[in-house]
């Protein structure tokens, strides 16, 4: 075989390696949710403090609906302070953060809320009905619901301050529904 030709052998491996490297840009867990663009499924839950949480009563506000669990390290642990900061910054501008604790033990969920001093409403989802309605695949997953009550964005994995801010600002910029 000619001298130069044999170097084709290692070269041939390059495209395959490039393809694998490309794979890092993708998130296989990010399955396009059919719910985006549809009205958010209604639910009524009782929070850890005993208060009633009804999605219908939040019509006209932007809702950040977050599904979490106390056993979900590290993502839910990274995300909890982000949600709390977002709630404090935007609660007076028409944004509500709602936490739904799924597949968890009651005490563990309460301890989580206490440890992170979460002041936004958090409720357990006994029987998992709400998480089934929203097609939860893993935790954490977050749904951004606009003022018309439609799901606009589904975010898989931990939120960052930037994503929270950008998404909420975008939804707030839209006109409010007629009362």
């Amino acid at each position: 075989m000619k001298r130069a030709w044999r170097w084709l052998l290692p070269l041939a491996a390059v495209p395959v390696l490039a393809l694998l490297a490309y794979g890092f840009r993708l998130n296989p867990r990010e399955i396009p949710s059919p719910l985006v663009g549809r009205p958010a499924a209604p639910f009524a839950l009782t929070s850890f403090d005993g208060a009633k949480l009804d999605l219908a009563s939040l019509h006209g506000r932007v809702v950040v609906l977050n599904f979490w669990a106390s056993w979900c390290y590290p993502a839910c642990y990274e995300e909890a302070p982000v949600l709390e900061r977002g709630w404090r910054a935007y609660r007076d501008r028409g944004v509500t953060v709602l936490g739904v604790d799924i597949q968890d033990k009651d005490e563990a969920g309460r301890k989580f809320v206490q440890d992170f001093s979460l002041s936004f409403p958090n409720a357990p989802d006994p029987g998992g009905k709400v998480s089934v309605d929203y097609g939860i695949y893993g935790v954490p997953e977050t749904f951004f619901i606009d003022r018309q009550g439609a799901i606009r964005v589904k975010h898989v994995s931990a939120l960052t301050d930037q994503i929270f801010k950008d998404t909420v600002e975008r939804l707030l910029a839209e006109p409010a529904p007629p009362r």
Partner: protein
Amino acid sequence: MIPEAGTGALLVALVLALYGATAAAIGGRRGRPALIESAQHAALGVFALITAGVLLLVYAFLTFDFSVRYVANNTNLGTPFYYRITSLWGALEGSIVLWAWMLSIYTLIVILRHRTSARELYPWALSVMLSVMAFFLLVMTVAAPVFARLTPVPGDGRGLNPLLEDSGMITHPVALYLGFTGFTVPFAFAVAALITGRVGDFWITTTRRWTIVAWYFLSLGLLIGGWWSYHVLGWGGYWAWDPVENAAFMPWLTGTALLHSVMIQERRRMLRLWNIALVMLTFGLTLFGTFLTRSGVIASVHAFSQGSIGIFFLSFLALVVLAGLGLIALRWDALAAQGELDSVVSRESAFLLNNVLLVAATFTVFFGTVFPLLAEAVRDTKVSVGAPFFNQVNVPLFLALIFLMGVGPLIAWRRASLENLRRNFLMPVLVGIVAAAVIRLLGVSSILAVVSLALTVFVAATIGVDLTRATRARLKMGEPALPALGGLLLRHNRRYGGFIVHFAILVVCVGVTGSQAWSVHTETTLKRGEETALGGYTIRFDGLRESQESNHGKVTGTFTVVNGGRAAGTVLEPAKKFYPQEQSPIAYVDYRLGLLDDIYLVLGDFARDGTSATVKFQVNRMVSWIWIGGLVLTLGTVLAILPERRRTS
């Protein structure tokens, strides 16, 4: 305290591995025994430190030290004792620890066995092994630190993935990783051969046994994985062409090719280039397998985690592949000098064809596995490649391979005469044809099943022909029958070990064929006391009961086999387990295994008051043959790696 000690041990091990790799390389280049000896001491130190790391981690698991994130993620206070130990490799970080630990053990054995026998290659092989070791230590300390702390310390851990709470968890990863890491040894010697330019046949004979051992553990790992899938996952199958199964299957295919092609090199001095490339490919595929499992690049039921680890593995994979192939290109002239085929009808060409088919199968599996990635890169669409693709392209390849399995061992080297062909194959071919006719007459309608079973009979007949002929020759010399056969197996242990492994593959093949062709299943809702029949068996639903286990709740259904020969009277209790940390309940399968039929039940939905339940009822045929094949495989392998006695006789 424990996490710091563990991290410290691993960091020191990393430094030692890097030092050892360098010292061995310099020692090999300059011919300085003192440096090589120092590298050996470093390898011993690495082993001791990783062992210490493993023990510290086990201790953290046993004492529920939830300040270690890995412990908190993989156990909770309810996890039973032995799963707290196996939790060690329950997820990414710990699996890497297990991997590195095994590699350090292999390295020690290489030192013990080869430090005097392979003087030229040994220092470089040691250097390569320690470099690979250093990579894994780098992953363990930087990319996926197993001793990372967790704050705040939770009161209880998340718990092991419930599907992993099974006896298969103890054996499957261990066997698989022994296989994966085992291929590092032939790889290290191949690289050593390329670096030193001694690309002759010495490295092949040195690593032959290593290849067999690695191949055996990989086979065992795959079979145990199948068993695990079969009796845990509750879909009644043992193989799904999942990306991660494929990842373990690809090195098995190339490893199988290697086992055969080295024989040609040993005997005819051919295929040097091919063999060295196969070793590179096999080792590269073991890394690719780990990359695939652990990077989360391709969606899979096995993909546990994502993170920076993928980039580490991909970089290392790129280094290994590019450096390996580059070295081959560099030594091209020495490698390319080789003999030629004398005839198409010869053992060489049968083996060559076997290699081509195995590598073709590897490429189809590889292509199918990365196709979703390709589709997303080129067309930006999400696709998944399912079992139909893999079956369609691989089944013909595997059938051809089984045919060759009968031809290869008996056909003559160089050029087979008509007399040789007639003597060896006339009888097996006739037996195969008769078998096909009989199977067809028995009412088997699937052509695929007929072909597969007839081929199996043909190959078994070739083994029979060889054994009877050889035994008869010994009988003529006056030996009694059984000692004659035993002596034959032991004296020609390599050849007959191979035959037994072939026989094991046939047994597995019958199991796969039978289960694919004749298994039946149904799903039905039964009221208490009601019966349903399937495939010659009738079961009755007798009720439900609820119980609380250490770390989960459980609803158990009771079903009695009321009709079905020896199986009648068997009580089966499939259940659903409810783990607090899981989204959906986990099915607990119950089954009755038999040589021909398995009765296999999975509990579905049920009425809370226990008056009715839905059950998935399967009668799976001949699946047990697959597991029996695994036992035979073990026998054959042990025989094949015994030291050869022929020369002393």
